[in-house]
C-alpha cells in the first residue's frame, strides 16, 4: 500500500491544484486547469520557437564565419569527422549489375561503383575495405541520399538538374552513358524508330521511364510500358517474351545481355535516346565532404592522366612536379584544408589504382568488356603531354 502511495505521489501532485479543498466542482476546475495547461504549453512552444530563432542566428553567424574563412575546417558535426570516428564509409549501391555493382565468387561487393567507394574509404579512413555497402533499389536512391543516412550514393545514378536540386550534390561524372534499346534479333528491328506499338520493359523509378515517354511522344510510337521494381524481373520478363524490347542505359544492357538465356539472339539498337552522366552523389549540406569526394575522384582521373597506376606508384620524388604534387611528395593541392593526409593520392592509387585500372578491372577486358578507346569514357588527354587529345570526356578539376 505504501508503494502504491509512492507511485502515485507524482501523479497526484499534478492534480493537487485541480482538487481544491474538497469542493464538488472538481471537474470544472480540472477543465479550466487543462486550458491553463494548454496555454502554458503554447507559451512553452513560443519559447522554443524563440530558442530556434536564436539557434538559427547562431548558425548564420557560423556560416558567415565560414565564408570569411575564420572557422577551422572539420567542425564538430562534419561528416568527415563522423566517418573518421566511425572508421568506415557507408555507400548506397547495388549488387545486381555485373561491372558496376556485383558480387564476386567469394561474395565480395565488386564493381566500378564499389571501387569508387573503396577509393573514398582509402582517402578518409586509410583502408579500402572499410566500406559498408547498403543495397538499395533504383527507386530508393532519392530518399536514401536525402535522409543523409549514407555518406555517398554510387549506384549508376544519372546526374539530372532536378535530382541535383532535390537529392544531393553530384561530385563528378565518372561514366558517360546513354539510354538504348535491346530487341530480339529475329524481330527484324534495326532502329528504335521502328518500335511502333511495341511493349517495352523498364525498371521502376528511373530516368529511363521519362526518356522512354519523351521518345515515344516525339516520334508518335505509342509505346506501352511494363514497369518492374527489380532488374532481375525485368530481364526475366524480356527473356520470356513478355516485352518486345528492353530499355536501359547501353552499358547496363551490355552487362545484362550476358544474363539472358541466349545472348546472341539479342541486339542492342544503335540509337541513344538520352544523356546519362553517372557519378557519385553526396548529401546536401556539407561542403567539406562534397569537396573531399570531388578531390578523391579527381585523384583517380589524374592518376591515370599522369601515368601513375596501381603497380607503379612512386614513393620518392620523381622530379615531375605534377606527379610529385599529386602524390604529396612536394607541394599540395589542398589536402590540409580538406582534412585529408598529405599522401592521400599515394594511398588511394596503391589501394584501388587509377581511373583506368578501375575501368579495366570492372568494365574493360577483365570485366564486362565495354570498349573504351575512342568513346566518351576515354580521358580527355594522356600523360605526359596535355596537348595530345584522346577524344574522351573524362576530366576533372586540376589538382593544384
Amino acid at each position, binding site marked *: 500500500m505504501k508503494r502504491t502511495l509512492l507511485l502515485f505521489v507524482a501523479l497526484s501532485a499534478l492534480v493537487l491544484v485541480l482538487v481544491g479543498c474538497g469542493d464538488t466542482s472538481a471537474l470544472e476546475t480540472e477543465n479550466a486547469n487543462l486550458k491553463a495547461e494548454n496555454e502554458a504549453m503554447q507559451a512553452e512552444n513560443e519559447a522554443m520557437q524563440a530558442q530556434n530563432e536564436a539557434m538559427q542566428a547562431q548558425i548564420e553567424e557560423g556560416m558567415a564565419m565560414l565564408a570569411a574563412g575564420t572557422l577551422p575546417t572539420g567542425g564538430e558535426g562534419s561528416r568527415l569527422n563522423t566517418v573518421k570516428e566511425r572508421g568506415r564509409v557507408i555507400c548506397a549501391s547495388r549488387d545486381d549489375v555485373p561491372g558496376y555493382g556485383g558480387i564476386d565468387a567469394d561474395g565480395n561487393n565488386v564493381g566500378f561503383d564499389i571501387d569508387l567507394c573503396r577509393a573514398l574509404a582509402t582517402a578518409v579512413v586509410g583502408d579500402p575495405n572499410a566500406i559498408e555497402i547498403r543495397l538499395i533499389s533504383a527507386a530508393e536512391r*532519392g530518399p536514401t541520399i536525402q535522409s543523409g543516412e549514407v555518406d555517398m550514393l554510387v549506384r549508376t545514378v544519372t546526374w539530372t538538374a532536378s535530382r541535383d536540386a532535390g537529392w544531393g550534390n553530384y561530385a563528378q561524372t565518372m561514366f558517360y552513358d546513354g539510354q538504348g534499346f535491346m530487341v530480339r534479333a529475329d*524481330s527484324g528491328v534495326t532502329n528504335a524508330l521502328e518500335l511502333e506499338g511495341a511493349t517495352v520493359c523498364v525498371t521502376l523509378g528511373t530516368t529511363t521511364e521519362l526518356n522512354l515517354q519523351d521518345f515515344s511522344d516525339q516520334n508518335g510510337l505509342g509505346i506501352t510500358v511494363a514497369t518492374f521494381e527489380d532488374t532481375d524481373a525485368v530481364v526475366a*520478363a524480356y527473356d520470356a517474351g513478355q516485352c518486345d524490347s528492353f530499355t536501359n542505359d547501353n552499358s547496363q544492357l551490355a552487362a545484362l545481355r550476358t544474363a539472358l538465356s541466349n545472348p546472341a539472339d539479342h541486339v542492342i539498337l544503335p540509337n541513344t535516346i538520352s544523356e546519362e552522366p553517372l557519378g557519385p552523389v553526396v548529401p546536401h549540406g556539407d561542403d567539406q565532404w562534397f569537396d573531399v569526394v570531388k578531390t578523391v575522384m579527381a585523384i583517380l582521373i589524374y592518376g591515370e592522366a599522369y601515368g601513375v597506376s596501381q603497380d607503379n606508384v612512386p614513393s620518392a620524388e620523381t622530379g615531375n612536379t605534377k606527379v610529385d604534387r599529386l602524390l604529396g611528395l612536394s607541394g599540395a593541392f589542398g589536402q590540409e584544408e580538406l582534412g585529408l593526409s598529405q599522401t592521400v593520392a599515394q594511398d588511394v592509387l596503391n589501394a584501388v589504382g587509377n581511373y583506368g585500372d578501375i575501368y579495366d578491372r570492372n568494365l574493360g577486358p577483365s570485366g564486362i568488356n565495354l570498349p573504351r578507346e575512342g568513346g566518351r569514357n576515354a580521358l580527355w588527354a594522356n600523360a605526359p603531354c596535355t596537348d595530345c587529345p584522346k577524344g574522351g570526356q573524362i576530366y576533372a578539376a586540376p589538382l593544384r
Partner: protein
Amino acid sequence: MVSAPRILTYQGIPVWRHVQIIQWAVQIMSGIVVVALVVWFFSNMVGAIQDRDIPSGFSFLSREYQTPIGEHFLPYDSSDTFLYALMVGITNTAIVAVAGVFLATALGIFIGVSRLSTNWIVSKLAMVYIEFFRNVPLLVQLFFWFYIVLELPGIRESVVVADAFYLSNRGFSMPWPTPTDYTVALIWLGLAAIAIVAGALVYRRQARMEEQTGRSGYPLIYSFATAIVIGAITWLVLSFATGNSPFDISVPEPQGRFGNIVGGFTARAGLMVLLTGLVMYTASFIAEIVRAGIQSVGRGQTEAARALGLSPMNTLRNVTFPQALRVIIPPLISQFLNLTKNSSLGGAVAYSDLTNIAVTMTQTAPAVSIFMLIMASYLAMSLTWSLIGNIYNRRIRFVGG
C-alpha cells in the same frame, strides 16, 4: 499512519488514494505524453526537412506528369497532371482491391466450407490449400505466379478461342463493351440502374406475397424479367432517338509488327499475377475465418435443423451460415484491408498500382509529400472497407435481447 492534511483530501479521502482522482490523473498524464510524442515526431520531421533542404509542398500536383503508366483503366496520357496520375493509380489499386475481395471471399467461403466437409479427401485438400498459401510469404507467391505466367506462350503463339479471346504471357484479352458516345452510354447506365432498382422492388413484393400466402411468387423470374425488359426498352429507345446504340462490343485483335492486342479488354500479365496471388493468399485466411465462424454456431442448431428434415445444404444456407456471419464479418473486414494494402506489392510484377506509380513520381516530385498522399489514400480506402463492414455488421447483428 498520520492522517493527511485537509487540503490533500477529497470527499474525506486522501487524494492519492481516491480512485476517481487517480484515474483522472492517469488519463491526463497519458494524454500529455501522447500529444508530446506527436508534437515531437512532427517537429522532428519538419526540422529534418528544413535542415536538409528536402523539397516538399504540393504545388507539383498541377504539373504535367510526363511519365508512362503501364496499365491504366482511366484514360491516361503523358500530358496529364500528377494529381490525375495519382487518381489513375488509386483507380488501379481500387480495381484490384474490389475484384480481389470478391474473388477471395468466394474462394475462401468455398474452401472454408470444404474444410468442414465430411468427405475426407475434400476436407484434407482444403487443409493442404490453407496451410500452403497461408504460410508462404505473399511476395514469394507473387514471383511464383509471375514465372508461371512467363511460361505461357508468347504473343505470336497466343492461345486463341473463337478469334475473340487471346491468352499469352502478356495477358488475357476478351471482347468488351465500349461506349460509342459517352453521353448516351451514361444516360443508358442511369436508366439501367433504375431498371435494377425496379427489379429489386418486384423481388421484394413477390417474396412477401410468397411468404404471406404460401403460393409460389417466382420472385427471381419476375424481378429479372422486369429489369431486362426495362433495360432493353430504354436501349432500343435510345438507339432510335440518337441513331447510336449506347455500347458497342469491341473485339480484341493483334495489330502491328509486334502483334500486340488492340481493342477489347486486356488484363495484362501484371494484373493477372497480382490478382491471382492476392486472391489465393487471402482466400486461405478467409477460409479459416469461415471455418471458425461455422464451428462457433452451437451444435444444437444443426441437429435441430436436420431433425426438421432440412438437407445439409439447406441447413448450411439457412441456419448455420447466417448465424456464423456475425462471427465472420469483423475478421473478414480486416482481411479485406490486408488485401487492399498488399496490392502495393504490384510493382514487383509490373502492375501499376498506386504505390508503383507514386514511387515513380518521387523521381520528379518531393518524396515526402508523395508518401504522405499515398498514406492518406490507403487510409481512405481502408476506412471505406471498415465503413462498409460496420454498416453490414449492424444490419446482421442480433435484434433485441
